[in-house]
């Protein structure tokens, strides 16, 4: 029941904010902030209760579940379930929601009510995606987030917003519809094999099907998730959408929408089609590595600072894809860690770029330079997130990327080695960005107000979170561990020929045989 409340509260808050927007610009902001903050408190209480040090021991794979019949004629139910993985992602969603409201406090002056309505509905639908364990419901929430996002980009975006918003909508919709076909295919395959027609995730796991059916259905799911993640040939919507979206929209896109794709692969794609995913893993890992390198190279080639940050997302999400298809404990934990850390660092960079854009009204790096002198606090924060993004040890992203590379190394050594090049390239573009924008001569002669209290508070919070992820990742990994183990078991039982790997001590890496000198 609490899960329904969690989502309904935000939907209701959105409607309330819209209504309040008729009379005031101030109240929608307050309503959104209060809604999300109250929600955050509830979530943290739940987190501590279920995953805290004095842990509650779950009896099944899910800690909280709610299920009602919705369209019984088709076996569709309103079924929400939460485990550690969902918990982490919901907390993240909520946190970034608060940041999005905070960072657009002054930037949005038009149709404030409707803006916050869209913002809250995006947050609520994404939470729905993270909680849904009925495939129809999952698809419902999946599609539902599109319209408010489309409005967010289309109404409040920058100069080329119409093109970007339509492109975003059509790409994701096309992917989504392919997933719908795959969902229905799975539904009928399962129904014919077992006589039970249902969209329930737990029931559909382990559906017997032929190899080619599994491959096609898996590709349907992959299409949808790959568009969102994004995987390289399907990424072209991302730089446009991220660049043209208002700051809050970019934060949501980078922090949440991309994670939805990764979550879908972890929760649905691999467990539902374990063997097909295993056969596909070389291709997927190849795409992942291509994405890592392509994103990094493209980022370096940008002159628009927001576009640069957007391309870094493609590169970072490549690591997530790599980790998912390596599918061992280390790699999965790493993937989850990158999802969280990337959301925070990239979100922070987008907010920073947004703040900068509010001051100098350009995103062109050619017109920046020497901003550190005039806005030192901003420069410092930018440097912090740039090095966080490039994977400096001690910060969250490092933990994730390290674990992914380590895990991938066990699964596919070549891929791991090539992916490591991406780490080097990320140093290049991150530092280059700092160099061009903040250091060097201030040739335009900018005189900027430095960060104000609100901006500083946002950044301080996000810095604290990145430090926490980097210095005490165990608290995060412990929450996710049980769900990762469960998912691995699901896959292991249907991949009988593959021996279940014993957990490997991270510090005792086993070298491949050919490395042993004769």
């Amino acid at each position: 029941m609490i899960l329904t409340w969690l989502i309904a509260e935000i939907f209701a808050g959105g409607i309330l904010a819209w209504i309040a927007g008729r009379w005031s610009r101030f109240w929608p902001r307050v309503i959104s902030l209060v809604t999300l903050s109250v929600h955050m408190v509830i979530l943290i209480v739940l987190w501590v209760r279920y995953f805290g040090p004095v842990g509650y021991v779950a009896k099944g794979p899910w800690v909280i579940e709610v299920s009602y019949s919705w369209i019984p004629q088709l076996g569709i139910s309103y079924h929400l379930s939460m485990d550690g993985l969902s918990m982490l992602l919901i907390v993240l969603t909520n946190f970034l929601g608060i940041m999005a409201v905070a960072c657009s406090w002054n930037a949005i002056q038009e149709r404030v009510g409707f803006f916050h309505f869209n913002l809250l509905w995006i947050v609520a639908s994404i939470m729905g995606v993270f909680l849904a364990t009925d495939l129809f419901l999952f698809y419902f929430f999946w599609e539902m987030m599109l319209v408010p996002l489309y409005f967010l980009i289309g109404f409040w975006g920058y100069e080329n917003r119409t093109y970007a918003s339509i492109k975003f909508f059509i790409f994701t919709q096309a992917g989504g519809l392919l997933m719908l076909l795959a969902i229905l295919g799975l539904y009928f395959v399962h129904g014919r094999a077992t006589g039970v027609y249902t969209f329930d995730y737990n029931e559909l796991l382990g559906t017997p099907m032929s190899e080619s059916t599994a491959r096609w259905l898996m590709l349907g799911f992959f299409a949808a998730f790959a568009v969102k993640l994004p995987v390289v040939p399907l990424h072209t919507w991302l730089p446009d959408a991220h660049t043209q979206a208002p700051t809050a929209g970019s934060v949501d896109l980078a922090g949440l929408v991309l994670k939805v794709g990764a979550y879908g692969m972890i929760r649905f794609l691999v467990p539902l089609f374990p063997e097909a995913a295993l056969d596909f893993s070389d291709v997927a890992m190849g795409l992942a590595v291509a994405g890592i390198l392509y994103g990094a190279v493209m980022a370096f080639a940008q002159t628009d600072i927001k576009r640069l940050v957007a391309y870094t997302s493609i590169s970072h999400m490549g690591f997530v894809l790599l980790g998912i298809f390596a599918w061992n404990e280390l790699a999965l934990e790493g993937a989850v860690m990158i999802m969280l850390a990337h959301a925070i660092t990239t979100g922070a960079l987008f907010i920073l770029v947004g703040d900068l854009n509010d001051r100098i009204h350009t995103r062109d790096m050619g017109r920046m330079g020497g901003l550190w002198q005039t806005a030192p606090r901003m420069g410092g924060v930018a440097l912090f997130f740039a090095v966080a993004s490039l994977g400096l040890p001690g910060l969250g992203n490092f933990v994730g990327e390290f674990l992914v590379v380590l895990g991938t190394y066990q699964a596919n050594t070549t891929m791991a080695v090539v992916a490591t090049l991406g780490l080097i390239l990320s140093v290049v573009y991150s530092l280059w960005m700092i160099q061009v924008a903040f250091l060097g001569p201030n040739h335009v002669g900018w005189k900027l107000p430095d960060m104000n209290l609100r901006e500083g508070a946002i950044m301080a919070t996000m810095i604290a979170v990145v430090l926490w992820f980097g210095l005490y990742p165990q608290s995060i990994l412990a929450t996710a561990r049980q769900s990762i183990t469960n998912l691995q078991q699901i896959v292991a039982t249907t991949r009988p020929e593959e021996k279940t790997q014993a957990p490997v001590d991270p510090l005792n890496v086993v070298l491949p045989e050919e490395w042993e000198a004769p």
Partner: protein
Amino acid sequence: MTRSGWIDVLPLILLAATPVAVMLAVAVRRSYVVSTAITFGGLVLAFVMLPVVTSQSDRQATPLFLVDNFALFYMGLLFAAALVLVILSYRYLKEHPGNLEEYWILLLLATLGSSVLVASVHFASFFLGLEILSISLYALIGYNRASAIGVEAAVKYLVLAAASTAFLLFGMALVYAEIGSMEFAQIASLRDALDDSQRVFFLSGLGLMGVGIGYKLAVVPFHMWAPDVYQGAPAPVTALIATISKGGVFAILLRFFTQIDFRADDSLFWIFSVIAIASMLAGNLLALLQNNVKRILAYSSIAHFGYLLVAFVAGGDLRVTAVTFYLIAYFVATAGAFGVITVLSGPERDADRIDDYRGLFWKRPWLAGIFAGMLLSLAGIPLTGGFIGKFYLVAAGAQSSLWALIIILVSGSVMSLFYYLRIIVAMYMRPVEEGEATPAPGFVPFSEGFVLLATGLLALWLGIYPAPLVHIIPKLVH
């Protein structure tokens, strides 16, 4: 005919009596308000009679009509649409020069024709219903005689509809020649006894009937009239063509071809599949090229009937639910969309240019919101009835493994997003200059606002909680 036989056809009789009443009232004194009231009252009365008739068991009212739940359900849908159209037409028409009362007579007759269609189980009533519908449409399309494109549209419709009727009659004659009966049930039971040479004529007859029906539904390749007629006809009449006319014809298509089990013949299955594919592709592709909102909706409606045909050719138990649910969602969305167009249209011209919608979100947020919702429902986005409808269509197709058809359906709906979004984008752009407004007055009368809001809420309800409707459809339709 027995007493209960009269009760069975009571809704049809009431509906037939209403135009007569309007005519008599006009003969006494021309009054727009009075004739509107009679029209509205007659429709409400006919609508209210439906539950009374439902309580009776299905029976053959005459050899011509079978008043079963299927017929009553579709009549309910048609009457509801007609009621919405009456409310929407009222203000729109008031500024029209010339006589107004005949409009109601024609509207009632068109509804009557369509309702006759959904109840008919005999070629005679089929033909009668179709002709009543078509003839009232000729006059309705050209109702504004001052408008050149209106008259052009009417003539175009007249010529093509007459041609399509000829096809239909020829087809009926061929079927009758081989079977010797005009009753659907007889045709269904005797068709298996045909030998091969008779079969050729029988199937050709069905094919020709398909052509006639195809014209009315404006599916490719019989769609040429649709964009011009949609554009030329007054906005409420366009809505009437899109809902009442096409809905009734689709119902008879469903009843007749299901009863004779067209899937038993590969040729018919392929013909309908090819029509479905062509309609989905051509409708969506051509809609991309349009700049006129009514023409966009015309092409999109071609595509929608292509989608419906996908579920139509599918076998399986989901089929009827899918088709019916989709048709309801389509009715709601189409009525709502044309409702907004009607509200924004004035006496000089209809609000059918995309530029008319520029900045509507900022000027009239409620209207724009409802219009956007209806377009999203037509596009099949969640929270709207169109989403569940499309889901059902795809499910019905997947159940019969018609993968090629549903992949085209899916690509079609991706394409369709582009033109629906174009209208939505125009609505939230800043208006170029103030004063260049839509041709409509700046207020929305209560009744129209109420109807639009109701369609909006209905679309939402269908999208969020479709279970009750999905629950009753199979019972109603079998």
